[in-house]
């Protein structure tokens, strides 16, 4: 029974991610276009909203090119492991007060830990491509994602400390509006580190369109490539959802169905900011990235922890 439920939740998560990615891509194309003085997709459907519906079959039927020199089994299945953990991590997100698909006492830890498996998959796909640029991208991604785990986790730790529980639903229940100014630094750090985690600009160093062409997935095409893209958008959706749930009070100030709507609105707002930042700022260099992580974000996250720790006894 548990297995069946798990399977159904998995399918649901996949669907959410797939649909979310489709809408996300459309939304990103519109946002990017307006920032760049363009209209973006406008021919298919109202405001071009069905553009991605047209693109998905294209991706499905595209020729699946596998380089001769690639390590074929790994090359073929690595994309699954990039996409899978993101989908799985969705299950612990508290969509509304009192309801999360998987209500577990270590949900926060689950959410931080499971997507990190992606690092391995990325490194595998990069290595399997047998391509210098891909390998470089994979190595960059590994360094970046592992490093940014630290400030991200520390930032989440602040809110966990306040709530006194690792269960996301408990956090949502315990959340009060004045937590927002109190944990604002943590939220910023979480947000920035999440952008770095999902390899989006200005931290898209592993992909680095202008340097490594597409980094670790340079040699992928068709649906395999699409799974990298879905992973990127899935990461964006899940990180935004999780951030909105933990740091912005989920459905606050509403409850019930309205609360879910509020959560989705907050998520879309966060995603839009992610896109806005990506299309505005230049890309950092690897050494800047690292020093930013260890010299700025991590100390700041520690400072936030200290603040929370000092405030905590008076609550």
């Amino acid at each position, binding site marked *: 029974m548990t297995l069946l439920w798990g399977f159904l939740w998995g399918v649901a998560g996949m669907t959410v991610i797939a649909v979310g990615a489709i809408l996300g891509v459309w939304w990103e194309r519109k*946002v990017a*276009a*307006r920032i*760049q003085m363009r*209209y973006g997709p*406008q021919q298919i459907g109202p405001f071009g909203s069905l553009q991605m519906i047209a693109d998905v079959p294209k991706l499905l039927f595209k020729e699946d090119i596998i380089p001769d020199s690639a390590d074929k089994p790994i090359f073929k299945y690595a994309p699954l492991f990039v996409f899978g953990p993101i989908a799985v991590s969705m299950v612990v997100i508290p969509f509304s007060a009192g309801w999360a698909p998987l209500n577990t006492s270590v949900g926060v830890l689950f959410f931080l830990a499971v997507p990190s498996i992606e690092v391995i998959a990325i490194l595998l796909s990069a290595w399997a491509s047998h391509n210098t640029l891909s390998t470089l991208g994979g190595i960059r991604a590994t360094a970046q994602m592992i490093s940014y785990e630290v400030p991200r986790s520390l930032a989440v730790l602040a809110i966990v400390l306040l709530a006194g529980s690792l269960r996301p639903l408990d956090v949502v229940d315990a959340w009060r509006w004045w937590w927002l100014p109190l944990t604002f630094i943590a939220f910023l750090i979480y947000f920035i580190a999440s952008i770095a985690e999902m390899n989006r600009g200005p931290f898209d160093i592993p992909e680095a369109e202008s340097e490594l062409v597409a980094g670790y997935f340079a040699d992928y095409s068709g649906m395999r490539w699409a799974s990298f893209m879905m992973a990127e958008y899935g990461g964006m959706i899940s990180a935004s959802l999780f951030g909105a749930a933990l740091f912005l009070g989920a459905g606050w100030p509403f409850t019930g169905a309205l609360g879910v709507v509020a959560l989705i609105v907050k998520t879309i707002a966060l995603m839009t900011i992610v896109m*806005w930042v990506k299309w505005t700022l230049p890309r950092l260099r690897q050494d800047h990235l690292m020093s930013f992580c260890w010299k700025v974000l991590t100390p700041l996250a520690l400072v936030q922890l200290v603040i929370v720790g000092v405030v905590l006894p008076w609550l």
Partner: protein
Amino acid sequence: MAVERDDIITPASVSNEYSPGVKGFLEGVRSLVTGLGITARISTEKPVTICYPAEKWSVSPRWRGALRLRGVLGRDEIPLIRDASELYNSVIEDLYKAERLPPCVGNCPANVDARGQGFLIAEDRIPEAYELVRDRNILPGVLGRICHHPCESACRRNYYDEPVAIRPLHRFAYEEFQKVAAERLKPLPVTQDKSVAVVGSGPSGLTAAYDLMKHGYRVVMYEREERPGGALGSGVPAYRLPRDILYKEIDGLVALGIELHCGVEIGKSMPLAALQREHAAVLLAVGLQESRILPIPGHDAEGVAGALEFLWAANNKGETGVRGKKVFVIGGGNVAVDVARCALRTGATEVRLASLESTEELPAHPWEIEEALDEGVIATCSVGPEEVLTQDGHVTGMRVRECLSVFDETGRFSPKFGTGLSDFECDVVVFSIGQAAKLDTLIAGTELLVSGRGQLVVDGTHFTTSVDGVFACGEVVTGPGSAIGSIATGHEVATSMIRYLQGNSLTDNRTPRPVPVYSKYAVADVTGVERSRLRSVMPMSRPEDRAKDFRPVELGLTHQEAMIEAARCLRCQSEICVGCTFCARTCPDYAIQVERVDEPGGRCLTRYDLDLTKCAFCGLCAEQCPTNALTHTGQYELSFFHRDLMVFDKGEMLRSGEGTRATGRDGITPPRCSAPKRREL
């Protein structure tokens, strides 16, 4: 950023360096926020891009899109420019404004349709060609020998190799016309009850008379001399214009209905007032009768002559009294050259031509000077007459002063003389420095006004004199000029007279003759040009032969030569491709292949292939197309379903420009080449 000067307003809106420490960190954060603010603001503005292709509705009128041909030889007729005299100016102006006026027609003072002539001759419709030319150029046979052919200097062919022989073709058309003259020269019907008197039978008088006759007026012409022709008869040397040609062509006009009375000098035989009473309008086209002679010391000595008298004697008597003598001709114009050449022909031992102008500035036509020098005339340039040296009232020599410059900075005639004097020995001095009108007997008893230069005072554009019903044209109005220029005034005065006779305003809705401007051509380098493209060489008699007598110098084209020459005409601005192949020669990428057949009557373009796979859209071909047949369309969608479709053949080149095989669909309207509507900057 270092700058060289301090007065630069620095365009840098951000400082070069950030402050260190926390301040710098905050500056950095602020820069990020600034950037996000800029992109946020821009995202709320209206996008600059457009919805393609729905909004892409215009391209630049100069857009270099796919090429097409407007018309093609064999399918389309060359338009002939023929219209009634009073409408002709507006026709020419409309064509000029539409850039459809051939340069030869535009450059001719009388706007003779040389393009139509070339077309008709090439099609072996020679009598029609003669009549087409005669509509504007009253004496094609005569002008075909003596005209200074401004048409040929404007010929577009100059740009490629050598001009089309338009003038010899006039002459050729006349000679062919003579074979059918009898049945084609029928008197024109007189439909109006008013009659017109024309005084003088020179080219301008004949032109006006012909135009009036075409409108149905009766024309009575009076000529002072025994034979008609005016200056053509008295002034033009016979070696250029055999007199029988002149008289025969004027006879043709008489056959059309001109009542010609020779030997009647108005003012002496009958007063002008009598003509005014008898006719509804009178035209004075009396020309210039007197030579000017400079009042320098010795100008009244025996042996000093005026050019007109000298030429009249040479042409009509064949003897000028210079046999075995040395002749000194003063003047550098065409008349002076004529005098010099006539002097040679009447037996002068040495003929010297002295002019104020330097060799480069000589006002005579260069080909005239060249021919004269070939025949042995000596040219002494940049000298001004100082004194006629005399002994016992006879001329013994000529003293001249060196001339430094003729024109001042503004281009006015203002000769500057140096101090150097030189003497030339000679027996006869002929002044050829201009002519004047002799009007005193003619206008005696009338209120006609005469200007300070001795010419009739007329309204410059309508040629009306100070007396109502009396008109004037020709050299008596304009001063010395060319024959074709006089003919042009004849057309203008005829328009005025017709309006006058019909009681219409002379000025309303009247188009002044347009003065088109064409760029000058440099002499084309013909070293690499194929023989078949070059101009037919006019056969000339040998210089040593022709200098002796008054036989014609130019011998005329044969029928075959004329046909080939007429086919050389590029039919400029007709918007009909004649297969001249200059586009193929200009193309840097060998994208164009052109072939045509040259059969009179069946002349057509057999092949016009444009290979779009090679075309670089540089536009050089359309730019130089003489006929404007090859043009760019506004198409910018040039994708094809198959590479073979990219070779356009003749039929494809002639497409309407709406819908092509490029789009695969016919009937869709590509963007027009209209005035571009641009978005706000």
